[in-house]
């Protein structure tokens, strides 16, 4: 009894400190990634050719000398680069991403305002893509005729630009059949077409990878054993093979979700949806550097978060990773 309690006393702090260390490591790595992204963005900004005020105002402007001087002063362009960098980092630490050149609003607020429609779109797209990929891969894996047929649509979906898919879907379902509204971020009906557009290309990739994994798993001895135990074909696919095939798919899905921040740009444009995509397009075309840097940081953050989520999912999918995780 005493020994057991003593043992637990010994083990618990140890585990706790190990976990703390693991968490601290993760947080440190995240901070390093963010700092790296911020610094790279800053360097890229300063490597741009031309005078920042001229870039901000654009060519052939009617802005006066006074206005130029005021802009230079307000954005600190008259300070040495090191001072600008330190001030930028200092502001970042306080969560201040600066003020947009062109929109004259805090970058953090702009991004926060536009984030939800994009998150909505991205999550809906990933969910639809996952369902399509799952059904398509599970049904067709190891069945040559079906496989050939689905490969065709996968290839088409992957290689068709999303703005083109979007225009096609709009033409059929909005302009002709008038089932869905042309565009907007107002309600669920307006989310369907953009989400499907975005989902199709992701689904194509996911489905290919998933089927490949399934087919490999189905040739493994354990699949045959399971069949021998009397499990149905579908049972083997869903209960055993899928688990094996899922690991690379989850990794890929995490990465794809991260890239959606850029992937939404054409979709948001075609459907006239608000969101980070249209914000970043606007920021890049209007040389709104603080906003571009804000979005760079956001995407770094998104990747950090997604890779954490993916790491947490691994042991849930594959029990073998749990013991490794504990010892590592």
């Amino acid at each position, binding site marked *: 009894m005493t020994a057991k309690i003593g043992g637990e006393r010994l083990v618990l702090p140890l585990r706790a400190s190990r976990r703390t260390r693991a968490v601290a490591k993760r947080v440190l790595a995240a901070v390093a990634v963010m700092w790296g992204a911020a610094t790279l963005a800053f360097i890229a900004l300063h490597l741009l050719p031309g005078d920042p005020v001229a870039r901000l*105002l*654009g*060519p*052939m402007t009617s*802005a006066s000398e006074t206005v130029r001087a005021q802009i230079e002063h307000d954005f600190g362009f008259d300070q040495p680069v090191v001072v600008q960098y330190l001030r930028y980092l200092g502001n970042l630490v306080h969560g201040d991403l600066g003020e947009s050149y*062109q929109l004259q609003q805090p970058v953090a607020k702009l991004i926060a305002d536009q984030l939800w429609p994009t998150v909505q779109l991205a999550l809906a797209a990933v969910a639809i893509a996952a369902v399509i990929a799952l059904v398509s891969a599970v049904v067709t894996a190891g069945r040559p005729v079906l496989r050939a047929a689905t490969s065709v649509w996968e290839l088409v979906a992957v290689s068709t630009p999303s703005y083109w898919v979007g225009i096609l879907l*709009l033409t059929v379902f909005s302009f002709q059949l008038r089932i869905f509204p042309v565009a907007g971020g107002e309600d669920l009906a307006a989310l369907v077409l953009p989400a499907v557009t975005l989902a199709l290309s992701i689904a194509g990739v996911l489905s290919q990878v998933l089927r490949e994994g399934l087919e490999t798993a189905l040739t493994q001895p354990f699949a045959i054993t399971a069949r021998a135990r009397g499990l149905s074909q579908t049972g083997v696919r869903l209960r055993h093979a899928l688990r094996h095939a899922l690991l690379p798919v989850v990794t890929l899905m995490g990465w794809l979700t991260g890239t959606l921040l850029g992937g939404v740009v054409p979709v948001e444009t*075609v459907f006239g949806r*608000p969101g980070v995509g249209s914000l970043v397009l606007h920021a890049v075309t209007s*040389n709104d550097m603080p906003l571009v840097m804000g979005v760079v940081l956001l995407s770094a953050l998104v990747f950090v978060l997604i890779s954490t989520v993916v790491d947490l999912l691994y042991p849930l999918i594959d029990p073998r990773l749990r013991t490794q995780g504990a010892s590592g």
Partner: protein
Amino acid sequence: MSTQRKTGTAIAAVASLSLVLAACDSSSGGASGATGNPVTGGTLTYAINTDADCLDPHQSPADVAGFFARPIVDSLVSLDAAGKIYPWLATSWTTSPDGKAYTFSLRTDVTFSDGEPFDAAAVKANFDHIAAKTTKSQYAASLFGPYAGTDVVDPYTVKVRFTQPFAPFLQAASTAYLGIYSPKALADNADKLCAGGPVAVGSGPFTFTGYTKGQSVVLTRNPGYAWAPPTAQHTGPAHLQTVTFRILPENSTRLGALTSGQVDVAKPLPPANAKTVGDTPNLSIERPVSPGSVYSLYLNTRSAPLDDQRVRTAIQRGIDVGADVKAIYFGQLDRAWSPLSPVTPAYDKTLENSWPYDPAKSAQLLDEAGWTGRDAGGYRTKDGRRLTLSWPSLPAGDAKESRDVLAQAIQADLKKIGVEAQHPPLDVGTYSAKANAGDFHLLDLSWARFEPDVLRSFFNSASGPPKGQNASFLKDPEVDTWTNAGAATADERLRAVDYAGVQHKVIDIAAVVPLYVPNRIVGVSKRVKGLSFDPNAWSLLYDVWRDGQ
């Protein structure tokens, strides 16, 4: 970006079209015809291609900022399509004998939609706000020209002073860029005006009720509105209850939204689709022409070999402008003959057909200028050097109105006369640096404003980049005298003479090759009645109503 925004765009005045003109103008037939009794209420959905970075016309140079603001803020005066000034918030005005001061008598019955009264102090607060350097006004402040200050003479009399005679001021005062906000809005929320929404309080026929960035702008009728300018077709509150602008950047989406009846008005439509839309029974096409400086190629007179007038004329006559514009824009845009658009006051019609395409003359002039050799590429050479011209391009500006395709046609024309025109795409920083330093031969620009004073910013020697748009780097004493004289006098006959002189001179010395007259192809559902356009080719929403349904 800014070139894209500013150049093709109407940076300028937005004012009202006269009742008489709208009723008589047959070109605004179909959808615009105000037949039947106006219906009160309903929503108009208007698809537009672009959002504004900053929605405050006091700060932003974007045409769309002025467009969204026009129904929200009123101006001191109103302008009709002929360029005649009418009262609006000011009942009358006088110009001092030296032309340096304008005294306005103001209406006494106007209230802003937040309940604040309109008076001389409100005008002063607005003008001081625009001129303040902390406002960083990129356009409105420049409309003030040699501004000295605004004085409150009595509660309903205000005096605006300038350091020099400044005739373009009344036109400027008619624009939404010098529109009047509630002084309370300026005092409390000056820093939030860029973000738009209900903080932007004016005295206009609509109030700014909603804004979702990148998606929509929503305006709601101001029920107390009773001070419409005489240029409008009715008095009292606006007919429509709500106006929703939907921002649809993609051409095909905007077009599909219009043809499927999901929006009532769509602007702009691609020239390629204009005819189809016009042939659709329930739709019509309007083509209001933009005023100001047309889309032109400016020839840098300071940069060899274009410092030789013969080479410049060879370029000017060696481009088949008419055929190029007709082919590329499906006949929907007119070729230009003058640097001024035909709808601008003081446009000189006598320039039309005065400088036709003449490649033989170009060849002769280039021979005379000594460019007689030919290299392996078929280009002319002089002392072993190829006749190459640099023409910096901004990809964002090029994509607009198929200007990249037009540029290719021009390059092909010039190749025929043995001139190589390089049109490399540049980033804004490099482009601005080159433009400001005069490190180029050709530059394409346009600038919409209902005022021939644009000629001063394009051709006066004091307007060299970065201070102005004199991309020809022209330094011509006659042109300077004319443009300065035109800015200093309000006498229309004198101005017509001065500006005709400028238009002829810059064509004669080939400082510019006018290309096409920008217009806005607007698709309108026949449900929409009473839609008219102001001198800046922007739709006026105050008189619009929806038929039935």
